[in-house]
């Protein structure tokens, strides 16, 4: 490829670091044997698995024994939801937020039956309606509550402490999908089951991670007679998961602060393009994730032209999905679903990359609107640019952090210095 590439689509699949690649190699050399047998090679595989669980447990704040590697994220959702629901027999209803991942929502429908899944709405920024949650738990037939830590598309972080309080009062276990947050912000503290996606923090795709609290109960609700681990996960990827998470943890706050600033820059400058809808909570959000939609632009064309310009991005527009349906998250918050661009930054992304992307974005959006003959039919830029600078917002008022938005007309710095934006501590 002649064009140098900038990868801005790291949700669920980041480029592997040198250390991660080396961990895969070492894991394959030391952990190729089935960890469930009786001989030395098997014991060595088991040691690799156990060291990996210990290392991850330290970072997540739980015991290694609470952690189970599973062969994929899909398997994690299937078994946790199905198995915990079955263990709560007699309680038929599963409560999920409107912005959960499709695989989780499907698993809930499969386990409880579509008519027994209560979907709790979110507001325009993606925050769960806590009153509606409390009301849904006011009946005694709920087996599980499933609320994500943070959203993989819009970045909004939920108030899990408040969610957990409501669940505790109702004595209903809380399943937390932390597949978009772990490795990027401190791990959530309030859960009975936690689902994590090592590929989201730089491990290879092909392994999932489940944490269960000591009081969580799981009964087999799957075909194969195996345990929660579905017959076992690849040991080399378990080691890579631990090494990649350690690597992220070592510089978690610095990286988060830097990427938070870069996303702020994207939010501000995208919102300054007329007819662009930047969504999600501008402050209480993941440091590295942002999505926005461009009025009159075709999502597939946007992604394809940005790709041709060297920028890999994702999209939640219907035309970019297999099933030709727009993202349920964008629908849940009432966002524009066409012309959607979804970005997740890995730690290697620099300010120069972001500035290059913004320039390419403006060009591509202009071109698509001009081709559609609607360049003159645009509203003024949206007010999101102001919200990003809104130090008076209640969400950050409790933090000592002072949020200074970088002016959108600042020239890009080539030295890669972090912008002077303080990253609010997230729960």
């Amino acid at each position: 490829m002649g064009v140098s590439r900038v990868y801005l689509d790291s949700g669920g699949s980041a480029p592997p670091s040198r250390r991660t690649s080396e961990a895969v190699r070492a894991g394959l050399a030391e952990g190729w044997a089935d960890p469930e047998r009786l001989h030395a090679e098997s014991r060595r595989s088991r040691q690799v698995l156990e060291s990996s669980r210990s290392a991850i447990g330290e970072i997540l704040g739980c015991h290694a024994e609470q952690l189970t590697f599973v062969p994929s994220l899909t398997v994690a959702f299937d078994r946790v939801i199905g198995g915990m629901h079955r263990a709560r027999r007699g309680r038929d209803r599963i409560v999920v937020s409107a912005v959960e991942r499709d695989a989780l929502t499907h698993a809930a429908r499969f386990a409880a039956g579509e008519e027994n899944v209560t979907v709790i709405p979110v507001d325009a920024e993606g925050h769960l309606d806590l009153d509606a949650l409390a009301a849904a738990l006011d009946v005694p037939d709920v087996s599980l509550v499933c609320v994500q830590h943070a959203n993989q598309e819009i970045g909004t972080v939920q108030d899990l402490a408040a969610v957990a309080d409501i669940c505790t009062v109702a004595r209903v276990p809380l399943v937390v999908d932390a597949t978009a947050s772990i490795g990027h912000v401190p791990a959530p503290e309030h859960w009975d089951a936690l689902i994590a996606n090592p590929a989201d923090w730089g491990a290879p795709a092909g392994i999932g991670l489940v944490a269960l609290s000591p009081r969580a109960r799981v009964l087999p609700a799957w075909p194969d007679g195996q345990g929660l681990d579905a017959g076992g996960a690849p040991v080399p990827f378990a080691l890579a998961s631990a090494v990649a998470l350690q690597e992220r943890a070592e510089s978690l706050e610095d990286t988060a602060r830097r990427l938070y600033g870069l996303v702020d820059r994207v939010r501000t400058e995208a919102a300054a393009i007329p007819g662009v809808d930047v969504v999600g909570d501008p402050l209480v959000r993941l440091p590295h994730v942002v999505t926005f939609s461009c009025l009159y632009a075709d999502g597939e064309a946007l992604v394809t032209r940005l790709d041709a310009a060297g920028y890999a991005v994702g999209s939640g527009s219907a035309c970019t999905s297999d099933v030709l349906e727009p993202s349920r998250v964008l629908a849940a918050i009432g966002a524009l679903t066409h012309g959607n661009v979804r970005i997740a930054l890995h730690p290697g992304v620099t300010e120069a990359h972001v500035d290059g992307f913004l320039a390419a974005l403006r060009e591509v959006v202009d071109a698509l609107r001009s081709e559609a003959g609607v360049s003159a039919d645009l509203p003024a830029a949206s007010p999101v640019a102001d919200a990003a600078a809104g130090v008076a917002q209640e969400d950050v008022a409790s933090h000592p952090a002072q949020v200074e938005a970088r002016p959108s007309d600042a020239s890009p710095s080539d030295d890669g210095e972090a912008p002077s934006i303080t990253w609010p501590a997230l729960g």
Partner: protein
Amino acid sequence: MTERAIVDARGMPCPRPVIELAKAVRGLSPGAEVAVLSDDPAARLDVPAWARMTGNAFVGVESPDDGEGDALVVRLA
């Protein structure tokens, strides 16, 4: 009854229904209504979002006279 323009965007994938809507409202007066006929599920979400972003009002979803698809009605501010 207010003036109501009809944009028949059935068979068009997103973002075409919204593009046709944008073209149709050119020169219409404040208070005018436009009904976008569409069978694209994204249009149900995108026409209200267009109204919000452009400062107009989304009136609601109706059934078109011939019953095919949705009639998504906006009122210009």
